[in-house]
């Protein structure tokens, strides 16, 4: 049994070492071919082929990600129609561009040209750094907007129900006020974030893009936190409605009209 465990551990170690070695080898072939590689025509050709294979593989990875993002957009329950269209158009444009770039890479005759294509693949599209977060965060922001609307409806109904059940106590009023404040805070945190997010364009300044995406992500997180608190308030108030005894229809009608 121990021997079996040892063999498994060795096999896993060997596999990890192999996987770790591949990117290093790939990077050296694409980034800077060694001087010895350029000494003969055959070596140069090998180096070019390796560079082309690596960049093609990286383009394919991006195309797969774009395909997955398209599936997410199509199956999203919360993305607003306009945001869906904007994102789908951008993904379509990126897919066309990267497919054309893939053909260009295949026809390059020098490693330097392939290296330039690799830079374009990253800077002109920013699939991982920008496009993927744009899709995910747009969905998050639209889901939060839907949650804020739903909670606002629940707030109105809870106010009415509590009024009908003999009036709102000061504790319940405090919960209602907090619920409304949390909904407002969430709306405020999310306000304008989708426009900012979808306005971001790919480019060479990765740290600037990362900063912008992180800011939107932080706003979405903050809004979600507010909405979670509003939901907790709503659940407390729902329990209060459950435990309260319904008053007479006449009293309920009077309480309801005074609440509105």
């Amino acid at each position, binding site marked *: 049994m121990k021997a079996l465990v040892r063999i498994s551990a060795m096999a896993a170690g060997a596999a990890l070492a192999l996987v770790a070695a591949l*990117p290093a080898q790939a990077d050296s072939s694409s980034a800077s071919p060694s001087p010895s590689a350029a000494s003969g025509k055959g070596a140069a050709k090998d180096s070019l082929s390796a560079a082309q294979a690596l960049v093609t593989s*990286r383009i394919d*990875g991006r195309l797969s*990600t774009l395909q997955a993002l398209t599936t997410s957009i199509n199956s999203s*329950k*919360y993305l607003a129609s306009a945001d869906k269209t904007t994102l789908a158009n951008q993904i379509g444009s990126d897919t066309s561009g990267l497919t054309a770039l893939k053909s260009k890479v295949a026809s390059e005759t020098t490693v330097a040209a392939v290296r330039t294509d690799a830079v374009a*693949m*990253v800077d002109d599209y*920013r*699939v*991982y*750094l920008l496009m*993927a*977060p744009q899709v*995910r*965060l747009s*969905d*998050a*922001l639209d*889901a*939060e907007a*839907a*949650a804020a609307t*739903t*909670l606002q*409806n*629940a707030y109105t*109904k*809870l106010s*009415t*129900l509590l009024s*009908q*059940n003999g009036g709102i106590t000061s504790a319940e009023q405090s919960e209602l006020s907090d619920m409304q404040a949390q909904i407002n805070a969430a709306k405020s945190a999310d306000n304008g974030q989708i426009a900012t997010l979808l306005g971001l364009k790919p480019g060479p300044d*990765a740290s600037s893009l990362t900063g912008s*995406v*992180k800011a939107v*992500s932080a706003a*979405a*997180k903050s809004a*979600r936190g507010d*909405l*979670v608190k509003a*939901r907790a308030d*709503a*659940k407390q108030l*729902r329990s209060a*409605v*459950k435990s309260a005894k*319904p*008053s*007479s*229809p006449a009293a*309920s*009608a009077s309480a*309801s009209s005074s609440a509105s």
Partner: protein
Amino acid sequence: MIKTVGTAVVGALLCAALLAGCGEKAAAAGGSGAGGAQSTSSPTAAGNPGAANEPSGAAAVDSELNSVDQQLGAAGSDVAKATQSPSDGDGS
């Protein structure tokens, strides 16, 4: 003779037209009836005063809170995915 046949044909056509009209009206009444039944059973009936309407209002709140759970779940999952590192490790 021809007059009699003509009168009979016109009469038959009128009867058919009347029957068709009645059918349409019946169908229309059935449609609106079903719609009416749907609207009275909808959760928004909570707006009416009185204890009789309280359960439907509370049920509507429960339904909304379930929706909020799903909406916030989706938002949380999306934010987490958005901040995951790039899959090919080149920071692009």
